[in-house]
């Protein structure tokens, strides 16, 4: 029987790949320190598998066939893409996968009303790679990516992300494989790319403040009421990727986070969220 041993949420801002290497600029010290702290938290949970909930950026998945939610099932997961190497300096790499657990997550989701798409052949972009490589620098823990569409409108509604999180937790716990699983939701606070407010720091600090409070308080009702497409767009044109944290909230059964922060820097503020996993139900 699988066990959920940790639930985290963090950023995948690709501009952090270059800027967090080695000695970092003053404004990014807190971001780097938060990643180091979360690296220790993940290691402390002793996971056998890291399940990354991520949104591909129109690299692997596109509007010719856009999955709302997809389980990536592969023993070897290549990352990333030539454009990400060019634009962000993120190297082409190969991550270990977990075919068995991925299959159980797919099956468990389907049995619980989440009609996951499934892929046996895909590449992972920076949304999977960056948090994984920062939190698991040896890159030796198998990863199961669950991709969400929070980039190409229309998106599934906020409540659906919570439901998917609940189903993931149940599927992990129902798996006959004896895996210790950490969930890492990979998303954003208020963020803008390719719009009038890009590269000007956090595009909507009041959204960030509110969103961090929702997570800290476990205020699922407020999240479901407030996280409309219009509100998220007003906070920045790629802010919808905050929805990935609702998958983590669902996996945590809506409990308050034990750590919730929006860390400021020259970029969009970086989210760092951690939840204690709920007790295993008898």
């Amino acid at each position: 029987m699988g066990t959920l041993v940790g639930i985290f949420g963090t950023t995948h801002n690709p501009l952090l790949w270059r800027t967090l290497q080695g000695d970092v600029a003053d404004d990014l010290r807190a971001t780097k320190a938060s990643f180091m702290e979360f690296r220790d938290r993940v290691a402390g949970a002793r996971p056998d598998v890291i399940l990354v909930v991520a949104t591909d950026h129109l690299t692997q998945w596109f509007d010719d066939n856009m999955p709302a939610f997809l389980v990536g099932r592969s023993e070897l997961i290549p990352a990333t893409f030539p454009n990400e190497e060019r634009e962000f300096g993120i190297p082409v790499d190969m991550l270990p996968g977990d075919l068995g657990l991925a299959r159980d997550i797919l099956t468990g989701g389907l049995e619980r009303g989440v009609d996951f798409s499934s892929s046996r052949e895909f590449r992972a972009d920076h949304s999977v790679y960056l948090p994984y490589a920062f939190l698991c620098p040896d890159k030796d823990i198998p990863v199961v990516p669950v991709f969400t569409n929070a980039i190409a409108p229309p998106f599934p509604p906020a409540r659906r992300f919570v439901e998917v999180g609940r189903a993931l937790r149940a599927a992990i716990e129902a798996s006959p494989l004896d895996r210790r699983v950490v969930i890492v939701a990979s998303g954003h606070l208020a963020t803008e790319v390719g719009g009038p407010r890009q590269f000007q720091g956090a595009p909507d600090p009041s959204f960030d403040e509110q969103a961090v409070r929702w997570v800290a308080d476990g205020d699922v009702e407020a999240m479901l009421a407030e996280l409309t497409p219009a509100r998220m767009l007003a906070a920045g044109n790629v802010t919808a990727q905050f929805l990935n944290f609702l998958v983590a909230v669902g996996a945590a059964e809506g409990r308050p986070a034990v750590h919730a922060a929006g860390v400021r820097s020259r970029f969009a503020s970086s989210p760092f969220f951690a939840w204690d996993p709920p007790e295993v139900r008898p």
Partner: protein
Amino acid sequence: MSQYVVNKFMRLVNMDPAALEAYVADPASFVAAFEADVDPDRQPWSVRGGRLEDHERRALVERDYGALYALGAHPYLLWSFTEAVWVPEITRAELVQRFRAAVTPFGYPDFGT
């Protein structure tokens, strides 16, 4: 409105280094070849169908990121594409300024396809 075809074009150029090189070397020829490839009349077995409208074709031939933004091109894809096709012809810092000036008047066009 063929936002989808515009996004498909930008994605091709952004992700395929050979396409990027060919497009920057001769935008008009590259756009024409792309259109022939996705034209459902010329490629009747294709499901890649879709045609660019005149203003979309012009925007792509001229690498006009402001016009692409205004017509509802996906902003994430658009920035990545724009950086790929303009830098190093102009510096990234200058492009960031020009891009902001070009897109700001249009606010937030609907980029759902």
